[in-house]
């Protein structure tokens, strides 16, 4: 069975370093509800170096949502900020860390480079 959330976190763990998180140091824990259980992922970030584990324990920032909602986010089908704004994802602790983490989210499928978009619009129908 496909598990986009696990794929996403495991890929981060394998890479071990994220250019976009070089300004970040701290811990983020994800509590994702799935089949009445809470699936936990813990990211320990040290200036871009990221260690991923399933450990429990305190974190500077805790993100809570359903696993289904998080699956949509990590596949680019939902936007993490919009999901937060409609309360499907909750945040506790260091909001800056969460905001930096958002940089790892994929964009929506099918988005255009502005140059390609302009060319498409200029092409006679």
């Amino acid at each position, binding site marked *: 069975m496909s598990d986009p959330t696990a794929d996403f976190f495991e890929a981060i763990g394998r890479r071990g370093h994220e250019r976009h998180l070089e300004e970040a140091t701290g811990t983020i824990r994800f509590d994702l509800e799935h089949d009445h259980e809470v699936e936990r992922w813990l990211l320990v970030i040290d200036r871009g170096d990221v260690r991923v584990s399933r450990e429990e324990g305190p974190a500077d920032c805790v993100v809570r949502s359903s696993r289904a909602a998080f699956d949509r986010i990590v596949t680019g089908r939902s936007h993490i900020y919009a999901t937060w704004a409609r309360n499907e994802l909750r945040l506790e602790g260091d909001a800056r860390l969460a905001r930096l983490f958002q940089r790892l*989210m994929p964009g929506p499928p099918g988005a255009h480079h*502005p140059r390609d978009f302009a060319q498409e619009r200029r092409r006679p129908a």
Partner: protein
Amino acid sequence: MSDGLVRLLDGNTFVVSEETGDIDASPAIPTGLFSFDTRFLSKWILSINGERVNALSIEEIEYFETRFFVIPTVPTPLVDISVSALRERTIGGNFAERLTVINHEPEPVDLRIRIDIESDFADLFEIKDVRNKTGRYYTRIEDGCLRLGYQRGMFCRETLISSTATAQVDERGMTYDVRIEPHGQWATEMQVKALGVDGRDLRESLQGRPGRARMQLREDLDRWLAESPRLTCDSATLAMTYRRSLTDLAALRFMPLTDGGRALPAAGLPWFMAIFGRDSILTSLQALPFAPSLAATTVRLLALLQGVVLDDFREEEPGKILHELRYGETIGFEEQPHSPYYGSADSTALWVILLDEYERWTGDATTVRRLERSARAALHWIDEYGDIMGDGYVWYQRRNEKNGLENQCWKDSWDAICFRDGRLPALPRATCELQGYAYDAKIRGARLAREFWNDPQYADRLEREAAELKERFNRDFWVADGEYYALALDGDGRQVDALSSNIGHLLWSGIVDESRAAKIAEHLLGPRLFSGWGVRTLATEEGRYNPIGYHVGTVWPFDNSFIAWGLRRYGFTHEAGRIAEGIIDAAEFFHGRLPEAFGGYDRELTRYPVLYPTACSPQAWSTGTPLLLLRTMLGMEPRGNHLVTRPAVPPSLGRIELLHIPGRWGRAGALGRAHPALTSRR
């Protein structure tokens, strides 16, 4: 307030009411209590014995504190008032109203005092047209409190109203039956809390901390004023305008959830109390010599929210600096793109400019080093994503064709970019000032690369690109028969040939060839553009010129402050002084609070500046205008670790002394005296 509405606020929690203190929201008069882009009260009406109240007077004490004196009858000469009421209202922490009702009679009175309460939980984007909302409303009466709620999916907002005096609570309000003794009084304090998910304080749930109480707000305002540079001057108007600007700038400070209580300027009160890329950057630039902390927060926060991916709905691209960030229901359910929305083609270059200017004033090299990756991404955006046509210019064309902005420059109304004959150009569009900003960003980026990032090759490349851009721009944008720069190029490379104020920004950026600067200055101060108060957005002979057209003929104070700065950069001290003088003269008519824009009518014709009717006042970059004009008149520039001044004060302003100017030098002073024979050019 000229529109009969009274505003009070703390950050993006604010109340807009009628002069009685009542709130009775309608599409035409959008009053209410708002927090984080949601309306929490759409009705808050006081009545005494069934009579609505009338305003006797309003005392706006501070931006977070107001007193309303009201009576339950129409004030009539020679008729004694038997009962009056005082509504003391503050915001900060919660919205609180202390209501005192006074009996002026020698007999006791029995009164039924009532507050009608309602909330439509409208999103800020729908207040002009609250549709049938998708969610479910509910009302609960609990322990003498009234709880109003709105739920859509997991999105939840609640208003909780409590009262110190015991009230009879029903679903539509609170009633008090009271007897007041002769010459006695009765009082209650009502608290209104804006709550988010799980009934938590909205600010706490969104920002991680509750709002500030009134005492904290007052201490904070006192500290802000005490830390600001001190101005003494001959002009009473300038002194009043400066004081007003400092206080308004304090009110406009917005504390984002990610920056540990530090503030940046929001765009305008009350509807634009949000993070805007362009507005926050330009206001921070204007205020740099006065309050450099604003710039520090602005560069950091905008870097944190910098674009990473391609997203058509939000018009996001890697490295791009945002346009606007919001919090409401329409954002959550992706009916509006402000999460954030990135539809502005100038904020990215302007951000680089602010970063460099910030370091020049403050010497904060740490921030510049820390933001190297963001700055490189911003500079890369200019060439990769800004250059839609692949010809070395910055262009825009919206990809969100549903609710994205058609014009993504500061003149963002639909008809702002036009040909002389009034036609609108095809997309994409490359407005001239975008090229100036890109040029300046490259020059400044080169300085940062050389001095802080240890990358001289990159610096050389940026300088080479800037020089090529300047040469290309002076060839392609120069309107030969009019001797000025075109407003824009259209998608076919044609010059959008209207004469506009945008050419003034080009002087500020330094992209204007020396040989052409005099001609540009002549246009700016010529009769087609200069109204006597300031430079019009569009020249009087253009097809779409309208003295009260938003971006096609009005005078914008902020626009003029940057134009004056540009004129000084090229040595036109006399011309810069005339603009400063005109705008400060205009400020007198607005009691020191410059509006967003005023009419482009000739000064000789109307004798006073005609107010352009907008809902937002104060507007951040209008508030910043007197500050930048002071910098311009005093010729303040950081040179190494010193503040140098080259004062050029226009004759009518006499003497200007500014003390306690913060910067890398610690604190310094500047003194300027009008010179009777201020001559043009150096």
